[in-house]
């Protein structure tokens, strides 16, 4: 099967981005371009590769991140024109490429020093993960950078397909805000007071401790009656738990009532019982557990050495080009 971008030459300038969010986003876009069949060249500066030493580190001292993110590239020939280049403003604007995908913090020319933690804070994503009595917490992994990488790849794909000679701009901040659109949209559309009320009325999704770990307690108003009946504690029928808003206002008390039921059961038992009633509760699985996850295994998602395949299948199978590989 011919890969979508077979024959396209893409320049990945992640090695020349001094800011880590930019470098990670660029590298993710380059990875996807390679996995969709482009020949991706990733030159390195004389000082070496800033991504090559990022954690987590493997027993041999090499970087698992580099193995995941940088596979399928070559240092190869950077001469001649490229169909596309992706990099930060300084690097990409010097590249000889028809399409230049430019990664910045706030937009063209607005590149103050920034971290992924800063992007999560400024975009409101950090505030969404705020456990009671704790500081707000970052999302695991490199979500702020990788999401911008997905956006960068999508813009690149559209430009490559159309044969565009253009500049595509991806803002790390705008991408994070786009992901967190509902927080701002609630304020913009309904007003700050309504937004605060909306927050109170959401009833609270969070994790609960099980006998062998945690599960995610996720439910809508329609799921409350079966959830209440599943747990079976008579106090759950009290008016203070009757509506999503009431449950949100009395969340600590609600959790205290529910906690023993969850703590007495394994994740598998809880998930099976909830799913039987079509309540969207699921187990919190660690990366190690995901390696043996039956759904991932059945779909062939985890490859050798834990490397995940591209998360799509086409016409029922992983596309053949992924097996043969068009990436240099």
């Amino acid at each position, binding site marked *: 099967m011919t890969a979508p971008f077979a024959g396209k030459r893409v320049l990945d300038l992640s090695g020349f981005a001094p800011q*880590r969010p930019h470098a990670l986003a660029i590298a993710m876009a380059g990875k*996807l371009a390679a996995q*969709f069949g482009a020949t991706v060249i990733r030159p390195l500066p004389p000082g070496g590769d800033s991504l090559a030493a990022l954690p987590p580190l493997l*027993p041999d001292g090499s970087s698992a*991140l580099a*193995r*995941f993110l940088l596979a399928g590239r070559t240092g190869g020939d950077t001469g001649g024109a490229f169909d596309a280049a992706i990099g930060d403003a300084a690097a990409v604007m010097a590249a000889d490429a028809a399409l230049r995908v430019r990664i910045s913090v*706030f937009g063209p020319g607005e590149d103050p*020093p920034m*971290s*992924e*933690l*800063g992007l999560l*804070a400024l975009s409101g994503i*950090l*505030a969404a*993960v705020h*456990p009671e009595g704790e*500081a707000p917490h*970052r*999302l*695991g*992994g490199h979500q702020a950078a990788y*999401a911008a990488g997905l956006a960068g790849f*999508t*813009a690149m*794909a559209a430009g490559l*397909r159309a*044969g565009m000679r253009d500049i595509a*701009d991806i*803002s790390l*901040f*705008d991408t994070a*805000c*786009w*992901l*967190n*659109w*509902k927080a701002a949209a609630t304020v913009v*559309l309904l007003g*700050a007071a309504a937004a605060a009320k909306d927050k109170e009325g959401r009833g609270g*999704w969070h*994790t609960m401790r099980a006998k062998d770990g*945690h599960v995610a307690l996720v439910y809508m108003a329609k799921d409350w009656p079966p959830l209440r009946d599943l747990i079976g504690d008579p106090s759950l029928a009290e008016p203070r738990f009757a509506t999503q808003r009431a449950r949100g206002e009395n969340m600590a008390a609600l959790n205290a009532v529910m906690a023993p039921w969850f703590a007495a059961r394994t994740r598998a038992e809880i998930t099976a019982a909830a799913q039987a009633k*079509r309540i*969207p509760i*699921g187990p*919190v*699985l660690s*990366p190690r557990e995901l*390696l043996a996850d039956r759904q*991932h295994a059945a779909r062939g998602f985890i490859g050798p*050495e*834990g*490397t995940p395949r591209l*998360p*799509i*299948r*086409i016409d*029922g199978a992983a596309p053949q080009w992924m097996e043969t590989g068009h990436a240099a």
Partner: protein
Amino acid sequence: MPHEVPRSPEGPGGAEPRHADASRRGGPLAGIRVVDLGWLTAGAASSALLLDLGADVVKVEGPGALDPFRDWSGADAASDWWNRSPFYNFTNRGKRSLCLDLKDPRGLAALMRVLEGADVLVENYRRGVLASFGLAPEMLRKRFPRLIIASISSQGEDGPERDMVSFGSTLEATGGLAALTGPAEGDPQITGRNINYPDQVVCLFATGAIVAALAQRDATGQGGHIDLSQRELTSFLLGEELIAAAAGVPTPRQGNADPAAPGEAVLPDGEGWRAVWDGGEAPVRDGAALAASPEFAAGTAILRAPDGQPAKGTPFRFGTWPAGIARGPSGLGEDNRAVLAEAGLTPEEIAVLEAAGVVATKPRRAPAQ
């Protein structure tokens, strides 16, 4: 591939859309026609991104099968509540609307006519629902070999947990993100209802995968059925952690610490919280602070429709195709006649469907509360 000449968005027999910015024609996907069976965010916002790249998107709902985003608890049941949901309108700006009863054979036949001219079908129904409408992907692939069918689902098209009921935050748990999010010594965390992170991030990837499939079709003439599992994408975005775990390296939850950036922390600042790192700091914003910030106002995450209404923005902009919105949301079924006429139905045929209620402009039910 050169740009194709964009088709008229209103098509033969159609009226100029209300509040349309007629100058906004073009974009890298100009000429691509998308049939959007997407609901809520994962499907509908993926289609919106295709629209942002220049595609023409027709959102298809049924009088008995509305996008659940149309239900809004603040709506007056005596009004046309289905056209007034702020979040629905916010997400589905710029799309045309076709309201067709797919459970009626005549409605299904009309959709088949629409699909004859389509390049992409996006859907994120519960697995099995598309087939129950008589739209099984295998059949669609045979009948429309050039069509790209993008199925965005929680678990994927198959596997022992295909039918596991999940929202986005469930997938944060089952995909590995929750285990790595939250206090190192405390409980794992999920983003919750306001973000449902996998539902958001999948749109960025699904759009790219669809564009890639279109590029492949340009070369081969063949469409394809894209099976995209949000759970897999969630795990994919933690790829380095999977590789580390496979090598026997512990992958603990680390709170706000970053081994590669020891100076990073989230600290109280008297009024709230601040993120600090070597070389900078930033306030931890809530929705109100975000909406009030100058960077947000200058950015593209929220844009304005031509009538001035706030609308969902876009994460990318091109020099020749700036971020923008050509028109606000269509009312339910507002584009029925135009879309069906483009598909080749005569005015008489459309009138028959309207009279039978197969084509509609209002739902058959009251708003959910």
